Every structure is written in C-alpha cells, then in structure tokens.
C-alpha cells in the first residue's frame, strides 16, 4: 500500500504538484502496480538473476567520431528564457 505521504514524497522528487484528488488516485494506482509486481514474489526465484534488460544484447558501442552539434540558436529555440547564450533558469537552492 502506497500511502499519501509516500505519494507526496515521490511527487516532490519529481517536482510535481498534485491536487488532493490526484494524490488519492495515485495512491491507489501506484498501490495496484506494486501489488501486481508483488505477485512475482510468489515464485521461487532463488537462482534467477535479476533482469535488467529484456534483450540479450551486449556491447552496443559507438565509434568516437564527432557529428555536427546544433547551431546555438537552434539549441536555444525552445528555451522558455534565454540569457548570455544560455538557458536562463531560477537559481537552484534559493
């Protein structure tokens, strides 16, 4: 069971502001997802390594060759606020 405090904690980490209604809904939705996952625990998984990936592929590597970067205007195009050739943001930690 994911309680209200846990939902608020996760929301805070994700910088989400939730209404009371949403908190209640998330609490029940997240709980049901966890319940579903918990079903797996009914199985004997003693000798099964955790699955981090669903494909059995390794070492997909890229050569260290450079590709053109974006022109700065293009990189900044969707920034809500621009200053000094950069993305202007509220100062963190204040």
């Amino acid at each position, binding site marked *: 069971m994911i309680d209200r405090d846990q939902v608020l904690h996760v929301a805070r*980490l994700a910088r989400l502001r939730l209404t009371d209604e949403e908190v209640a809904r998330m609490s029940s939705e997240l709980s049901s997802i966890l319940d579903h996952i918990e079903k797996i625990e009914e199985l004997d998984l003693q000798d099964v390594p955790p699955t981090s990936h669903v494909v059995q592929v390794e*070492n997909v590597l890229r050569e260290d060759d450079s590709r053109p970067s974006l022109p700065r205007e293009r990189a900044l195009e969707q920034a809500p606020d621009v200053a000094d050739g950069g993305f*202007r*943001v509220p*100062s963190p*930690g*204040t």
Partner: protein
Amino acid sequence: MTPEGPAAERRYEPVIGLEIHVQLRTRTKMFCGCALSFGEEPNTRTCPICLGHPGTLPAVNAEAVHFGLMIALALECDLAERSVFHRKNYFYPDLPKGYQISQYDVPLARNGVLGDVRIHRVHLEEDAAKLVHAGSSGRLHGAEASVVDFNRGGTPLVEIVTEPDIRSAAEAAEWGRLLRATLRATGVSDVNMEEGSLRVDANVSIRPAGESTYGTKAELKNMNSFRFLERGIEAELARQEAIVRDGAEVEQETLHFDPQTGALTPLRSKEYAHDYRYFPEPDLVPVAPTEEMVSRARGALPELPAARAGRLEADRGLPPETARLLAFRAELGDYYEAALAADGDVDPRALASWVTNDLQARLGDGEDPARSSVEPAALARLVAMVGERRISQSAAKEVLDVLAAEGGDPEAIASERSLEMAGGDEIAQVVERALEQNADAVEQVRAGNQKAIGAIVGAVMRETKGRADGGEVQRLIRERIEA
C-alpha cells in the same frame, strides 16, 4: 575521571577516503557525437541527445569504455564481466534529463589498489552541464537566476572511489599526486585540477585511536589543487575534533572549500538529495568487456609511475624520494633516463640529484627540461666530469648556468672559462707559495695545532679559484710540512 580517561586526553585518528572524477580525453561525449568543449562559446556543443530532448537515445562511446578499462587495469581492479548503466534521478538545472546516466550496483570494475590505498570501485558516467550564475556577483548563493551552458554536459567521466584507507591530510595529497601521475601516464585525461578535468572530493571522519568503527563523515568538495585538498582536510579534521572534544556529535554534511579564505561552508542541504531512485538504464545494454577489449586496454598502458619509481630505486640505487620525484613527473624521468643513456660514465645517483635539484632550479616552474637548452647528454657529461674530479661542484654549477642560458658543450665551456681543476704541477707551485706566505700557520701546525692548516688550504683554494680538490690540497700541504 572515567576509566577511558578524559576526552581532552584522548587521541583521535583521521579516516579519509577520496572520490575522484576524471574527465576523459575522448573526441566526443559519452553518449552522443558532440565534440568535447574546450572553452567554446556556451551551448555550441549540444545536440538533442545531450540536451535531453524526448525521444532521443544514448549510445555508448567505445573509446570512453576503452579509457575506463585502462584506468581500471592501471589501478589493478577486477573487471566486471557485465556492467550495467543506471539512471541516477535528481532534479537540478545542470541535468536536462532529470537523471544522470551512471553505474550503480555493477560498476565497470572493483577491488583495485594504488600504492597503499585500496580502490573500492571504478565506474563510467556522464558529466553535468555548467551553471553560470547570472549577474556579475558570481556568488553561489543569493543570485536569483542562473544560466546553463550544456557544452560540458555529457562529457565522459570515470569516477574512482577509494576505501577509507588514508590516515592523514598529507597522505591524501601525496596519494592524490600518485593517482594524477598514474592517470597522466595512461594519457586518458588532461588531469588538470584547476580546469576541472580532475576533481577530488574527500570523505573525512575521525575516531578514537584504536577503534575499528567509523565516525560520521563530512564530504569536502571543490578543492582544486592538492595543496588545498591537504589544507581543507586539515581544517575539517580540526573542526571535527573540536566538536567531539566538546562532547557534541559530528553531523553528516557536505562542505564547500573556499580556496581564497580556506573556509569550509556547509552547502545548503539538498532536500531528498540522496533519494536517487537508481534503476537500470533501459536505453543502454550492458558493457561486457571481451578478451580483445581487455587486452587492447592492457596493451595501451605504459610503464606506470609506481613501477617506474621502484625500477629507478632498484636498478639505479636512487633514494626513494628522488625516484618518486622522477617517476611522478614523467618529463623529469624521461630527461633523466635520456641523459643516463647518453653517457656511460655518469653516476646515476649524482645525475638524479643534478636533474631534480640544480637543473630544476634553473627551469621555470613546471617547465619540461627537454625543452630547455641543456641537452641531456651535456648534463650527463658535466656530472661525469665532476665524478672524474675534473671540475669542482661549484665550477660545474657555473657551467650549468651557461648551459641553461645558451646551451653548448660542458667540456668546451669549462676549458674556455678555465674552470677545470688545476693540474698537479700547478697545484704544487701554488702550495709552495702558500706555505711561504703563511709561515706562522706552518709553525703552528708543526707545534701540533692541526686546525691551523685551514688557513693554508684556504689560501690555495683562493689562488686556484676553487679549481683544486680541498682534500687533496690538505694532503699535499701535510706532506710538505712533515717532510
């Protein structure tokens, strides 16, 4: 009085571990093809991947893995058969995706050692972007807005974490220098602390001497030289000891070192900062180093400084300190070995001393001696001449001055300037004159005052301008007086 004795008399032992971030000198970023940035205009080295745009996919840079393996092998680590990338989730403006791609429970390598310090782990990750604080104040706190420059975002990093094996601030700095020299020898990074391509954080705690449990640690950041690392750790140790002696407890916190003032300021504790909710990066498959990848990394490693210092000590009979100096500063070591190879007659110990003392003193700070006008062969010859007693130490220093200023051949310089030792006939004549001019001293020596001989030796040395061997002159004088 308690059985353990009063707190004021208890001795405390420092427990120090280091966390080192190394920017790799690849051509491109860790997960995209943007070229690495060296002071370009802000945000001119970005693409949808390193800007964290939705729908983009990272791709691991093969060269970064290669460099990571080289570091892991240089630190004698066990390589993971199959290491996994994780997402480390936190919100900060320097992290466009809301997470950093790093490694968590299965790092690239573990269980290494360098010198006396064990390595806990070595892993690959990406660097964050740079936050430039808006306004001209440049202060970390108080500025209302910041500007993000994503040029650095996504630069390949190797993080090295040591075990808490270090027991003093000086040892931390000394080991840090060994690590830097080792990384520099591998060539995988610029390892420049001031420019941030080598960043060293220290976890510092104290415990009563003899205890085996650890005290609460503080994390020190932003020390951009090994001198500051040492100073910062010293200040923190003193602070913790004062707290504990007052009967209070050290709190776990992150402290920012100010090189200007030497002060340690607690960073505003990032709420929830340690709740990173790591999970495997679904967009990247594991890195499983093949035999070929490992042997290529091993083959790319040169002789490392610790091995070189050991070799110079064992094969050349150098004192440990001199051997370390030559090994840690590869350009000095290379110069030394070139000089040694150039002249078979030179004494390796004397040559090492000339390279690390006299030659270095005549170079600019950090200057590569190979770029000076003193040819390695010329220095070796000069030192050999001293060994052959053909020139005195002080005269040799004069020749070195000339070599450092304009280069040339030490034999020619010594002979042009009449700096070579005086010959046997010349010395005999000078001794004869000195005996005549110092008849009093001669009488005193005859009467048993051995010290009086100094005046006669001094006269000979003055006359020859130091081109005579003091011991030899003394022997000659004694022979003449006793005859």
